[in-house]
């Protein structure tokens, strides 16, 4: 499998504050990769770097043969990286359908359009003309994912999808993941819930204080190792 996106010893800064230290990361086409870690470990920062919201000039970050550090956020979106951001960030002045349509601004070819997204999350048809602010949290999350899909991305970034949602809603939303992936779309998901992350990903990275503390296939990684990498405790049997 060829890598779709690779980051090599990537550093990232907010002003003087360094948030990521030498992160090595790769994802191949069609793969699902989970990023886990405690609050402030750098997961969202990493997604901000991938989408260009946090520029990292001079770093090594390649997507589909393109040097991402050379492109601002709006160009990266056109290249095929779309994100459902943390907190959903829907546009309050826009209706549900308008929010979805805005996602199609990049006009990339692919299976996703208004019809397909509304088939995936049927509730969105019913709520098409509702202001996005009047939706429940789960519905808002569906709009955010649908909006990202409308761009027909090669990589879909899902930041904290389950945050603040009831377990049954979370299950509903994650049940859409196989259909998203069946067209070969790669997925990078940031999750607080380790169990969920392991269940829906092929591989897993654990971030701790801005550094990758663990990496491996989700299916075979030992839960104790994950916990240790997550919380930064020394492994007892090491």
């Amino acid at each position, binding site marked *: 499998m060829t890598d779709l996106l690779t980051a090599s010893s990537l550093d990232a800064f907010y002003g003087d504050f360094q948030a990521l230290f030498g992160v090595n990361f790769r994802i191949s086409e069609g793969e699902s990769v989970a990023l886990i870690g405690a609050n402030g470990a750098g997961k969202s920062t990493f997604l901000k770097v991938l*989408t*260009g*919201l946090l520029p990292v000039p001079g770093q090594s970050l390649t997507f589909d043969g393109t040097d991402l550090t050379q492109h*601002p*956020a*709006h*160009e990266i*979106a*056109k290249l095929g990286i*779309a*994100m459902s*951001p943390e907190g959903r*960030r829907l*546009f*309050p*002045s*826009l209706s549900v359908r*308008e929010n979805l*349509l*805005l*996602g199609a*601004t*990049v006009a990339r070819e692919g299976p996703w359009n208004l019809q397909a997204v509304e088939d995936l999350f049927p509730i969105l048809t019913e709520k098409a003309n509702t*202001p996005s*602010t*009047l939706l429940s949290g789960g519905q808002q999350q569906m709009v955010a994912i649908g*909006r*990202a899909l409308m*761009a027909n991305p090669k990589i879909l970034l899902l930041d904290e999808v389950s945050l603040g949602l009831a377990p049954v809603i979370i299950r509903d939303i994650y049940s859409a993941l196989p259909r998203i992936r069946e067209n070969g779309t790669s997925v990078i998901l940031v999750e607080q819930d380790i169990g969920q992350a392991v269940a829906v990903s092929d591989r897993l990275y654990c971030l701790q204080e801005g550094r990758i503390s663990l990496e491996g296939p989700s299916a075979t990684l030992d839960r104790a190792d994950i916990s240790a990498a997550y919380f930064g405790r020394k492994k007892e049997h090491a």
Partner: protein
Amino acid sequence: MEWINAILQGILLGGLYALFAAGLSLMFGIMRFVNLAHGDFIIAAAFLTLVFVDLTGLSPLWAIVPIVPAMMVAGYIGQRVVLNRLSGKDLLPSILVTFGLSVILQNLMLETFSADSRRVSAGALDTAAIPLGGGLAVGVIPLLLFVSAIAVIALLNWIFAHTAVGRQLRATSDDPETVSLMGINKKHLFAIAMSLASGVVALAGVLLAVKTNFDPAAGPVRLLFAFEAVIIGGLGSLWGTLAGGVILGVAQGLGAKIDPGMQILAGHIVFLIILVLRPQGLFPKQRG
């Protein structure tokens, strides 16, 4: 009857103020940016109308054809080249740059056109009026202004509600960071907004030239009227801005009826009263 006439003329004048205000409202609504040279750009468009009439001998209303697109292009370029560098968290630079621009424009117009008060004649239209009976009449030009204001606001609202660009502009106004995730270049969108605002400014300038006297120093007062109409109407609503313009126009008309020296003052005072009693304006945008 004279009072009714004063109110009627005030309403029509309000249309012109709404045009002044629509451009300002647009810029603030989308870019959180206030152009202190707004009034001076309106006066510049009025002077361009004068030049157009001198050069072509056509009716001044034809000046809309070259001046509106020209100023739209200029607005786009100005935003991309200069003003986008200033849009950020800190308001001071954009206020200071546009304030400097205001002084530059005023003095350039002073050098070019002298301090004389000017007016552009639209021929027979100048005095044409439609009698309403009972001694009341509405001038064709004031009516034309009012209808233009309604048309412009309706058009802008339609653009916002029903076009892809309008959607993008509203989204940018909501959250300029997240729109970039949708592949939208904020700088391009800001320039589009500025271009739309400049088109309205150009139209307002041409109509002002036909309606009333102007001179190079007349800009700042127009800025103040535009600002007052926006605040009276409530931020974020263009129809509110029209209402604000009408309220300001009526206040001035009634003030002038009491004493010619009171015209402008009456408008300012009504503005201040509304500001104290209802700082969010009369018709603020409702958010869910």
